[in-house]
């Protein structure tokens, strides 16, 4: 969302006061990112708020339709990997799903879950008998923007934590998938022979969060697994879940998966339960109304 201090245009709306009714409860935005207290022109959304909405929608739309810049990403990851030669020396691979373009991708989720023939064949030389500990798969999903903005800093945070946390950690070649959905990671993990796959994918962009990265971990990945076999970490981005926190959650999930030899509903992310407990005691300002009953009840 556009913050007040970043508003597009300020001086052109001087006559505002006469035509726009402002809402004093806009101050409650302290409590929520919801678009409350917009004010009104007549009963309609004022010009500035209306155009700010259009900007947010435009950003979300662009995130959906921006093409994943695989070449740049490949270079960045190659450079990043050079700091960790002990876990992999293979360059990142570029793959493509069966969805040939974005329009097909949006209408055929089944195509987005499968590699095209050429990509599948290209993985064969990288198969090893001794399984890799982890395959990192990066896919555009519904927001290439999320990938462009978050993947490199997130992986930079993740790799040292995994190297410290898992003995003799080995990484399969990183794969970059164009027009990919979550389940394609299982195909890739199986083809490479990885014990686990971590899918980094652009989430469906919200109006206030066009750049949200989602992480999906599957233990013992195989084609055809369903969502209940995956663990998800959502909303990884600068204004959301931090890279460091997300990386620690990944290590936790991966360690649990290694211990239990499975993933999905069997693993509980305990950190979320704590959050719920602490918020359970709150009461809302709306119930803390100091006017007397007569006032509350109107006349």
């Amino acid at each position, binding site marked *: 969302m556009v913050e007040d201090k970043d508003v597009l245009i300020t001086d052109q709306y001087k006559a505002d006061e006469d035509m726009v009714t402002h809402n004093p409860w806009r*101050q*409650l935005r302290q409590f929520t990112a919801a678009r409350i207290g917009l004010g009104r022109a007549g009963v309609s959304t004022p010009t500035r708020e209306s155009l700010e909405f259009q900007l947010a929608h435009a950003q979300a739309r662009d995130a959906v339709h921006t093409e994943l810049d695989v070449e740049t990403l490949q270079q960045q990851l190659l450079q990043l990997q050079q700091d960790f030669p002990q876990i992999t020396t293979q360059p990142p691979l570029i793959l493509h799903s069966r969805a040939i373009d974005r329009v097909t991708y949006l209408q055929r989720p089944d195509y987005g879950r499968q590699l095209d023939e050429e990509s599948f064949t290209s993985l064969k030389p990288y198969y090893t008998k001794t399984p890799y500990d982890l395959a990192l798969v990066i896919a555009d999903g519904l927001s290439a923007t999320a990938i462009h903005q978050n993947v490199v800093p997130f992986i930079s945070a993740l790799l040292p934590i995994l190297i410290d946390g898992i003995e003799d950690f080995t990484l399969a070649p990183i794969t970059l998938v164009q027009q990919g959905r979550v389940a394609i990671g299982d195909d890739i993990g199986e083809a490479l022979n990885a014990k686990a796959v971590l899918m980094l994918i652009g989430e469906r962009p*919200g109006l206030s969060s066009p750049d949200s990265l989602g992480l999906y971990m599957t233990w013992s990945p195989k084609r055809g697994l369903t969502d209940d076999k995956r663990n998800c970490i959502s909303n990884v981005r600068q204004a959301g879940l931090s890279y460091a926190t997300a990386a620690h959650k990944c290590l936790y999930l991966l360690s649990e998966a290694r211990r239990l030899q499975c993933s999905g509903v069997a693993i509980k992310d305990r950190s979320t339960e704590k959050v719920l407990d602490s918020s359970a005691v*709150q009461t809302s300002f709306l119930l803390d109304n100091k006017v007397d009953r007569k006032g509350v009840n109107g006349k």
Partner: protein
Amino acid sequence: MSQSYRYQLGSKTYQFADLAELMAKATPARSGDRLAGVIAESAEQRAVAQLLLAEVPLKTFLNETLVPYEDDEITRLIIDEHDAEAFSVISHLTVGDFRNWLLTDTASTEVLKQVSAGITPEMAAAVSKIMRNQDLILVAQKCRVITAFRNTIGLPKRLSTRLQPNHPTDDVNGIAASMLDGLLYGSGDAVIGINPATDNVTQATRLMNLMDEVISLYEIPTQSCVLTHVTNTLECIENGAPVDLVFQSIGGTEKTNSSFGFNLAILAEAQQAALSLNRGTVGQNVMYFETGQGSSLSANAHHGLDQQTCEARAYAVARKFDPLLVNTVVGFIGPEYLFDGKEIIRAGLEDHFCGKLLGLPMGCDVCYTNHAEADQNDMDNLLTLLGTAGCSFVMGIPGSDDIMLNYQTTSFHDALYARRVLGLGAAPEFEAWLEKMQIMSNAGLAQLTNHLPPAFAGSLNSSAVRHFHG
């Protein structure tokens, strides 16, 4: 039992294996049917299927079930509870005749009400497939479905709203802020309904208490609902939580509903439990259902049917339990089921028409996701069309932006636009409250007052708000 359908067009012969295929091929184009592989192969094949479907007698739908009777409790519900006497008025008609009949003055509001229990979901779906958008609007507008709990929904020239104060972490002040915003824009007569971010009994109870206390303190003639799973709500009732409405997402096949984790017996149990609380003041419709085209395909439980026919079958489930509200969440599911604004608009009108014809208090979540080919203008169009069609309620959310579910639906402002341009009021009990609280100076004309309503001023000076500002 099943027969095939043939049509000769010049030298070309079109053949459809059975009624399910004929229905699917006759359906106006949409991406979900393409994904399911049941869509017409050409525009001509679709038009031919519609011509053939128009010749199918309505009686056929009672003899030729699209999902086998033995395999599906919804088929059994449809067949076993069919009202033959109500049907007798239209039993001699074909699907094509039925369209004509619905459009005549004979099919008045009263007559449509009498016939409703004789119409099966498949009949409604079939006739909708050969109706244009204006037909769907005209006939739906004649249907009247009135329900009540603490206020009355569905009266003529009314458009209610669900206030949807969702928050990504269920923060009580965040939710309360959106609730206040909505109430001060005149929203919330259909229900104040929260989609919880964390879906469990503890959280649901917290949110129920929050809404119940606000409704009591400000004496709002409306009802609350936490949109959690029906079994969670049952547990909340057992624990003594203040449950007004029981929510459940429903689909049109038994398999869809078992993928949602419930069956008809559980819904019946929940309805009885909610009724036993006796919390309604002007009525006892205690159920709130949500539906949407594509859910059966998404659950891999569509039995080869097109998504609109599956959707209509969900309305058989809904009408069994006398709901206060039924909401088709039309654009939420995404472009693989409804690709763009045109498909979303068509589906919204179909769902509203079929629901109303079957006797349901049909509302619509006029909405889209950011990966659909749709925008605010498409939503303006659908809202205006549905308002014209007599839609029972729409959603209301701050600035159209649901920051929890990450999609766009109608705003508080949008509802006021529709009320003004179409001359629609809120539920009468709620309108009176809006004026009493000085939120509106003239609720019939959707005129908001220019000052902060005094009853709410105190909460803005509460310690929580002041504390935040230091």
